[in-house]
C-alpha cells in the first residue's frame, strides 16, 4: 500500500514558504524562476504513518501472556527481563502504533540514506538509520547503519506494509515484535543472470529482543559484537504478463546468551551461553489484474523458518551439578497467506499459520521435552480509499499450546491508518 507518490510534501511546503517572498516582489515574481526551487529539490522526502487500531480478545490472562507461554518458545526471554516478561501485545481497546516518521533521499552521487524515527506515546526509537551505496560496479550494493535484515519476505517490511494488522507468530516468537532489525552492515549482489538473482550477507551487532542479545550482570561476560551473521538468496523467474514470482532461502547464526530466574524468587540463578541459528525459505506470487483500483489482484505468500538454540549451562546457583551440560531447543513455524481484490479498492485476505511442528527441548538434566504445536487462522477485509489511507477489519482464531494446556483465543482488530507526506514506493 501507499505504493506511489512521494510528491506532495515538497510542492506544498514550497508554496507555503515561498508565498511571502513572492508577495514582496509581486510584479517581477511571475517572470523570475523560483530561486529556491533547486534547493528544495535537495530536501529529503518526509512522511509520517499514523496507524491506530481497536483491539479485543478473549484469553484468560491476556494475549501477551499466552504468546509468552507458548510451549517450547517460552524459555526465550532475553536476559535481565525476568521470567514474568510478557510479549509485547496490544491492549484491549484503543491502540496507537508508533508514529513512523521517515526521511529519505539521495545524499550525493555515491550514497542514499533513510532515517525512520518510531515515536511512541512515551518514548522514541531509532527504527532505521541506513546508508546505502548507489554507484558500485558489478551489481554490488553495501548498506550500513541500523536496518531491517532482508532475509525472508516480511522481515524488511514495515508494519504499515503488512497485509494483516499483526505479524506472523513465528516472527514474533523467534525474533520479537521488530523482527531482525539491528546495527550492522550488508553486502548484496545482483547476479548477471537473465532472471532475478540477488544474494546478500549481513553482519549484525546482535541486539535482538528474542535472540542473540545479552545485557548481563557480570556472571556472564558479554560476547563482543558483531554477534550475528545472516545470508540469503532471492530468485525471481521471469513470468509472462502480469505475473510476479519470487523465491527466497536464508540462514542466520549468532552467539546467544541468557540468564534466568528458575525458582522465581526475583534473583537470577542460572546462566546459559551458546548460539542460535535459524534457516528457512519464502515464496511470493503476485498477479496484477488488468482491472483498475486493485480489483482482481491476487497475492500468495508463505514463509517457513526453523530455529535451533544450542546453549551450555555456564553457571547454576541452585543446581551446580548441571553446570557444563547443554540445553538445546528446536522450534519451527510457517505461515501461508493470500489476498484478493474482490472489488475496486477492497481486498479480502486469509492467513493460516502454525508454530512448533518441530518443538523439542533437551534440558541440562538430560531430560527431553516434546511439545505440541500452536496454530492460528486469520481473516481480514480492507478498504483502501486512496493510495494514502486504509481501513481494515481482522479476526484471528488461535489454538495455543502452553504449559497450562491448550488455550483457544479469538482476537479482533479494527485498523485505520494513513500515510502523510512524501513516502517512497515499496519493493515487490
Amino acid at each position, binding site marked *: 500500500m501507499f*505504493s506511489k*507518490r512521494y510528491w506532495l510534501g515538497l510542492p506544498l511546503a514550497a508554496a507555503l514558504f515561498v508565498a511571502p517572498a513572492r508577495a514582496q516582489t509581486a510584479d517581477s515574481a511571475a517572470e523570475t524562476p523560483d530561486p529556491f526551487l533547486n534547493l528544495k529539490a535537495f530536501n529529503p522526502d518526509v512522511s509520517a504513518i499514523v496507524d491506530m487500531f481497536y483491539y479485543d480478545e478473549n484469553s484468560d490472562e491476556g494475549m501477551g501472556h499466552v504468546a509468552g507461554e507458548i510451549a517450547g518458545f517460552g524459555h526465550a526471554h532475553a536476559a535481565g527481563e525476568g521470567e514474568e516478561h510478557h510479549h509485547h501485545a496490544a491492549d484491549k481497546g484503543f491502540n496507537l502504533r508508533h508514529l513512523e516518521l521517515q526521511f529519505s533521499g539521495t545524499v550525493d552521487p555515491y550514497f542514499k540514506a533513510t532515517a525512520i524515527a518510531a515515536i511512541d506515546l512515551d518514548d522514541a526509537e531509532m527504527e532505521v538509520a541506513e546508508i546505502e551505496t548507489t554507484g558500485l560496479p558489478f551489481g*554490488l550494493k553495501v548498506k550500513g547503519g541500523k536496518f531491517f535484515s532482508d532475509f525472508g519476505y516480511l522481515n524488511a517490511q514495515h508494519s504499515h506494509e503488512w497485509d494483516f494488522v499483526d505479524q506472523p507468530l513465528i516472527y514474533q516468537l523467534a525474533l520479537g515484535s521488530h523482527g531482525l532489525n539491528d546495527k550492522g552492515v550488508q553486502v548484496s549482489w545482483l547476479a548477471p*543472470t*537473465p532472471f532475478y538473482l540477488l544474494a546478500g550477507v549481513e553482519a549484525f551487532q546482535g541486539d535482538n529482543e528474542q535472540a542473540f542479545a545479552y545485557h548481563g550482570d557480570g556472571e556472564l561476560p558479554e560476547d563482543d559484537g558483531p554477534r550475528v551473521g545472516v545470508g540469503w538468496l532471492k530468485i525471481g523467474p521471469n513470468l509472462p504478463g502480469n505475473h510476479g514470482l519470487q523465491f527466497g532461502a536464508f540462514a542466520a547464526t549468532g552467539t546467544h546468551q541468557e540468564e534466568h530466574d528458575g525458582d522465581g524468587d526475583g534473583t537470577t540463578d542460572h546462566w546459559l551461553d551458546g548460539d542460535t541459528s535459524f534457516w528457512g525459505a519464502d515464496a511470493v506470487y503476485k498477479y496484477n489484474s*488488468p482491472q483498475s483500483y486493485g480489483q482482481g489482484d491476487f497475492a500468495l505468500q508463505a514463509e517457513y523458518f526453523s530455529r535451533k538454540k544450542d546453549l551450555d549451562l555456564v553457571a547454576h546457583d541452585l543446581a551446580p551439578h548441571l553446570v557444563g551440560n547443554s540445553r538445546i531447543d528446536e522450534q519451527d513455524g510457517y505461515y501461508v497467506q493470500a489476498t484478493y481484490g474482490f472489488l475496486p479498492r477492497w481486498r479480502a485476505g486469509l492467513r493460516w499459520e502454525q508454530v512448533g511442528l518441530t518443538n523439542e527441548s533437551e534440558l541440562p538434566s538430560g531430560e527431553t521435552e516434546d511439545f505440541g504445536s500452536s496454530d492460528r487462522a486469520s481473516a481480514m477485509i480492507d478498504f483502501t480509499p*486512496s493510495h494514502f489511507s486504509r481501513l481494515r477489519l481482522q479476526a484471528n482464531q488461535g489454538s495455543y499450546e502452553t504449559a497450562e494446556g491448550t488455550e483457544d483465543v479469538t482476537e479482533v482488530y479494527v485498523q485505520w491508518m494513513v500515510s502523510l507526506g512524501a513516502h517512497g*514506493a515499496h519493493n515487490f
Partner: protein
Amino acid sequence: MGKRLMGALTLALAFAAGAGATPLNIVATTSDIADLAKAVAGEHAVVSSICTGTEDPHYLTAKPGFIARARTADLWIAVGLELESAWELPVLNGSRNRHVQPGTDGYLDLSKSVELLDVPQGPLSRAMGDVHPGGNPHYWLDPLNGRRMAEAIAERLARLRPDLAGEFYANLAQFRNALDERMFGAKALQGAKAETLWKRHARGEEIPNLGGWAAQLAPRRGQGLVTYHKSWIYFANRFGLRVVGELEPQPGIPPTAAHLAKLVATMKAEQVDLILQEPFYSTKAAERVSAATGARVVVAANSVGGRPEATDYLALLDRIVAELSKE
C-alpha cells in the same frame, strides 16, 4: 577444420568487440514508448517495455523480473510525471545499473520534451485525489507529442551512439512522415509542409485536401465527450474535442452514484453523446450513464497492446480515431 573454426571464432570475436556490433538494450516503461523507440532505433536496439499495455501503469508493482531487465539496460525511457512512481525507483535502484539512474544519459524522461496540459496552478492538496503536480501524464495520446517523443528518443540515441546518429535520424524522418500522413493524408502534405499543417490544424484553420485522422475527426470538432479518467485530454485537445467531465469524481477515485447523477445532468445540458474509456476500467458506470443519456460508450485502448488491434503506435491512434468517428 580446427583452423577454420579458430578463424571463424576470431572473426566473431572481432565483430563482438567492434563498436556497433552489440545492439543497445532499451527498456521503456510503457508499450507506447517501446514502439516509438523501435521505430527510431531500428535494428540497432533490442527494445522491451515494462507495461504490456493491458494494465494501468499507476497500479503496477516492482517485480523482480523488472529489476533483472533494468540491470542490463543501456537506456531507460519513462513517461515521467509520476505515472510510474509506484514502482520505477525501486526497480532502478534495485537494478544497481549506474548507467540508467535518473540524471544520467541512460535515463530519458519524455515528459521533458512534450507540451503538457493540466499542470496544476496554485496550492495542491491530496484532497483533490490522485493529481500529478507536474502535469497530466497521458500525453502520448496526442500524435504531435508522439512525434516529439520520437524526436527526443532519436536525440538521446544519437548521444549514446554517435556512430549511428545518421541512421537514427533517418528512421526518425521515416516515422515522422508516416505519422504526418496518417494525421493529414498524403494529399494535404503535397500542398504544405507538415510543420505548417500541424500549426494550421491546431488553430482550427481550413486545410485543403485534408485526409487522415484530422479529416475523420473534423465533424466532431467542438463536440463534447465524457471520459472515465482524465487520460484523454491530450487526444481531445489535438482534435478539438471538448472533455465535459469524467466518470471518476476525482482522479483515482472510482465513480460514485452522486457524481454520476450530476454528470448525467451536465451531459444532457451540453448534449454529450459519447463516453470514452480504457479497457481496464469496468464499463458499469459508463453503461449506467449511457442508459440515462443515450450516449455511445467507446472502449478504446490508450496504450499499444491494450487491445489486439493496437499493434503499434499508429495502429493505436487509427483505432481510437476510427471508433470515435463512427456515427
